[in-house]
């Protein structure tokens, strides 16, 4: 009979136990890894789609994602597209901690049959107990919010966790981040209060979930600001393209077309022979397109100047 109180027995026992338990855990983890990753990806896709008000089930999510998300880009804080990284695999939470200039910023371009092009941008930040994240969808103008989705790891149920509920997220659609030439990521204020700057669009926070609500506000500020240049560019391109298509009564041009390009086409081809019904507001729309192009150029100039001064 072995002496169960001896040191040797204890050491052998604990060693065997650790090996067995380690093997069991390693086996479980290996055996389930593929499935778990698949689930995590499907979940991310369904979260992205929820930002544009599409709810899917586990079985349809991949098909829906491929149907609605027509393009995925990675941009930098100057609004330029970068290559070599895949948007979907970028760890947004890690990017959000880097200095603005080094961040890789994913953009999901979504094409909805009834509402047109939307840009979906990922957000990541901290709540009270742990990470919070979300996706915010912008209209093609690059300024108006179309929808928002938030999730969290472990905020208090009934308080901070309410950020996932429609009562909170439904406040976002219609808010604008560009006011004139200024960029204000949406603020989250205590319910009933107003932000210090009256120009800023804001939503009401959750009463009792102050720190989580502040976390959402900080997340918008931190994660949306680097997108400013890109949103401006995308918005201007759309405005230019829209002005062009309304004036010439044509099918909408590519939303990503360069504004100044559009201008050139507009002046050379169509103004000479305006189509009927469009001639009345052609002056107004041309002016708008001109302004859009001017703004885009100004933005480009600024970027060049910044680059020059950096050198």
């Amino acid at each position, binding site marked *: 009979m072995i002496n169960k*109180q001896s040191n040797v027995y204890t050491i052998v026992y604990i060693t065997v136990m650790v090996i067995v*338990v380690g093997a069991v855990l390693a086996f479980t983890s290996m055996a389930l890894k593929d*499935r778990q990753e698949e689930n995590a990806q499907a979940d991310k896709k369904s979260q992205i789609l929820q930002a544009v008000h599409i709810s899917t089930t586990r079985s349809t999510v991949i098909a829906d994602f491929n149907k609605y998300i027509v393009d995925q880009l990675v941009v930098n804080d100057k609004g330029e597209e970068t290559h070599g990284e895949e948007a979907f695999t970028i760890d947004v939470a890690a990017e959000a901690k880097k200095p603005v200039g080094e961040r890789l910023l994913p953009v999901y371009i979504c094409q909805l049959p009834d509402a047109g092009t939307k840009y979906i941008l990922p957000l990541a930040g901290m709540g009270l107990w742990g990470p919070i994240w979300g996706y915010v969808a912008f209209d093609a103008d690059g300024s108006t919010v179309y929808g928002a989705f938030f999730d969290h790891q472990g905020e208090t*149920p*009934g308080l901070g966790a309410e950020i996932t509920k429609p009562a909170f997220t439904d406040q976002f659609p219609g808010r604008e981040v560009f006011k004139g030439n200024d960029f204000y990521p949406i603020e989250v204020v205590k319910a009933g209060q107003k932000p210090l700057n009256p120009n800023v669009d804001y939503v009401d926070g959750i009463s009792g979930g102050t720190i989580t609500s502040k976390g959402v506000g900080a997340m918008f500020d931190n994660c949306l600001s680097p997108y400013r240049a890109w949103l401006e560019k995308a918005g201007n391109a759309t405005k230019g393209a829209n002005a062009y298509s309304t004036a010439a009564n044509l099918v909408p041009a590519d939303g990503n077309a360069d504004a100044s390009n559009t201008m050139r086409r507009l002046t050379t081809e169509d103004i000479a022979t305006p189509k009927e019904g469009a001639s009345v507001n052609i002056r107004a729309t041309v002016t708008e397109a001109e302004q859009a192009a001017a703004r885009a150029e100004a933005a480009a100039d600024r970027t060049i100047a910044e680059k020059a001064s950096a050198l």
Partner: protein
Amino acid sequence: MADKISNKQIFFNPFSKDNPVIVQVLGICSCLAVTAKLEPALVMGISVIAVLAFSNVIISLIRNTIPTNIRIIVQLVVVAALVIVVNQLLLAYAYDVSKQLSVFIGLIITNCILMGRLEAFAMGNKPWPSFLDGVGNGIGYAIILIIVGFFRELLGSGTLMGFQIIPQCFYEAGYVNNGLMILPPMALIVVACIIWAHRAWNKDLQEK
């Protein structure tokens, strides 16, 4: 001693007479954390039943081999390993549930009811009674969680399982949700009220 208590008693005693929460006053911390809403309370209850039952069985199976001086460590390892396996399985097969559970699943390891049952029962009993004891205590714990969650969600948010229960006309007439119910201290007060009612009913539990 084990022979004197029937399996039926092992299973049903923890529901009321020997309830882990309101009689033994164990597991209060998780009671406080997960009962702001009914749904997490329910999910937590179910997970504790599963983990408690299986860890009781495993410890009971190996009870005669465990060296006495490291028994607590062995118990902890078994519970922690089980909790991780349950979490991994949920991640693979019930992703939505696991997202809600992710915070609470870690709490199960620190739940004193588990250590209490392993140490007090599974170390000295055969696997089948240990299994019944685990399920019984898990249910006893879950019942209290659900009662507390029911009152806190109903009075604090006006909903149950996320569905609006208190009609809109109440709010129009000036009714306001009691925000205090969502905060942790109210869990203790609700538990205390349950203990009060329970002891008023079971006079033999009252301390002299």
